[in-house]
């Protein structure tokens, strides 16, 4: 036995003369597979770094030149607001759809199920092209009573721009996914909480917004955050309908300069940066909605134990 035990790990008086074995004196076990795994990973990292630094076709100088190019930044802005818009609209519509699926009125349930089936079932790329070409199917868009008077109408060719087609298409897809995520969160809240809220005399709306939804949010936020990351990356699809998002703006540049790889790296770096930033936001939301659900954290202090039957 090597004498390398650390005496600070246990009080001195714990050791008595009669003690022969003491686990505090045990040495570290050698784990050969871990050593091997560590060596392999280090090797991969070195090779990767070597490739990134020495391969001249990556053209890091071009990457640096265009990273903060105004048209790239404007494309980045478009990508971010488009993802945010689709997420907000998708979450609101998705919440309504989730409520509809849990309704006790069957036709509303059927309609919600059909909506989710259709917009989740068709590839987003196909939907975007479809919405962009809506004017062919529906030359005029009008608000009025069906088969009755019309209050207002617009030319579909003017209304359906790349922007509106992108927002509509992405929001529809997003709402279908969010509906499933939110529904999962809602049914995860135990029935007793609804009972308690109703027993307090809260109305159905108060019960939903004050008691059920905040508890469902704990379950909704993690997959909802992944969903936001999906839609952020999904915005790259709108480049096919000539909307000036991040991907489209770098495409415009490399179509002119033929510096395809460095421009794609510019796009990759920005996508990664934004996703990383929003992942931190997600962590913050998770902590916010978990208040009261841990015995320790939150604003409140940790309770001191009381003697049994303090008031008896």
């Amino acid at each position: 036995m090597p004498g390398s035990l650390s005496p600070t790990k246990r009080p001195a008086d714990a050791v008595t003369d009669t003690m022969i074995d003491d686990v505090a004196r045990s040495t570290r076990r050698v784990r050969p597979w871990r050593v091997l795994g560590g060596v392999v990973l280090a090797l991969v990292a070195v090779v990767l770094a070597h490739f990134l630094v020495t391969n001249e076709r990556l053209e890091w100088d071009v990457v640096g030149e265009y990273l903060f190019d105004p048209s790239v930044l404007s494309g980045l802005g478009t990508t971010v607001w488009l993802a945010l818009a689709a997420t907000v609209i998708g979450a609101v519509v998705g919440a309504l759809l989730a409520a509809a699926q849990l309704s006790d009125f069957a036709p509303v349930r059927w309609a919600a199920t059909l909506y989710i089936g259709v917009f989740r079932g068709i590839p987003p790329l196909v939907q975007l092209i479809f919405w962009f070409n809506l004017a062919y199917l529906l030359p005029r868009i009008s608000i009025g009573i069906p088969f009755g008077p019309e209050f207002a109408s617009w030319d579909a060719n003017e209304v359906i721009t790349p922007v509106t087609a992108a927002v509509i298409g992405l929001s529809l897809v997003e709402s279908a996914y969010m509906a499933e995520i939110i529904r999962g969160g809602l049914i995860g809240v135990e029935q007793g909480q609804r009972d308690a809220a109703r027993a307090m005399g809260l109305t159905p709306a108060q019960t939903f917004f004050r008691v059920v939804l905040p508890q469902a949010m704990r379950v909704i936020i993690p997959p909802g955050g992944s969903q936001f990351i999906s839609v952020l990356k999904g915005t790259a699809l709108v480049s096919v309908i000539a909307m000036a998002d991040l991907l489209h703006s770098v495409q415009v540049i490399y179509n002119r300069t033929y510096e395809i790889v460095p421009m794609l790296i510019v796009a990759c770096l920005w996508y990664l940066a934004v996703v990383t930033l929003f992942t931190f936001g997600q962590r913050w939301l998770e902590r916010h909605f978990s208040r009261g659900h841990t015995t320790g954290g939150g604003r409140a202090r940790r309770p001191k134990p009381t003697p049994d039957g303090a008031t008896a």
Partner: protein
Amino acid sequence: MTGEPALRVRGIRKNFGDHAALDGVDLDVADGEVVTVIGPSGSGKSTLIRCVHQLETIDSGAIYLDDELLGHERHRGGLRPLGARRVAAQRSRMSMVFQQFHLIPHFTVLRNITEAPVRVHGRSRAEAETEARELLERVGLGDRADHYPRQLSGGQQQRVAIARAVAARPRVMLFDEPTSALDPELVDEVLSVMRQLAAEGMTMVVVTHEIAFAREVADRCVFMEAGRIVESGRPDEMLTAPRTARLRAFLARQARHGEAGQRENQHGQSLPTAQEHTS
């Protein structure tokens, strides 16, 4: 126990599928009266008070609170169900204490108590908080106002739940086996709060397994089996000299198993503890 019945239950029936949970129950509860409901698991005790509180709908019969029909209104010579907001308003005149406490986990203790007074009864937050702190003092939890429910023991949570129920200034308080989910050493702290309420003249219907509590606190005891009230009367008479064979058998079972019998009973209903249930 004087005056008009605060609560009248008239011939109510409730089916869950083919099973008749309540099979014609009549019950009057006078102003300030404490009624305990005892009986084996599945006898319909909890269903009875859940129906009174409009958490379950009834299939036939009627329930009145201070002569007002609950859950339905007269319409074109018949009856029709009330809208959800009207039902909520009727519910707000009663309070329920649940077996599993059901405190709202993301509200602090104080907020749990003030929520109904502020949102439902339209009191100012300041007034509601003052009253909530007084109630917390009375149930011995004056220093726990800013804690979250998860940070409290089961007995403490149930005392908060009782404070929450009292804060609504209810006409009738309903208790659904309030001590059955508690560790035996925590039962007394909850029962003592309930004793205090009974002494102050609160009108209470208490579904319980605590025969001793039923005997000591109740003005009247009701024994249910298979969805019917089999026997009712003054607890001292009824629990010492039961008139029906079925109550005699029930009491004998309870006595034989004693404390252990009650624990077994809970396990028979496969009720998880609060921690397991909610985390």
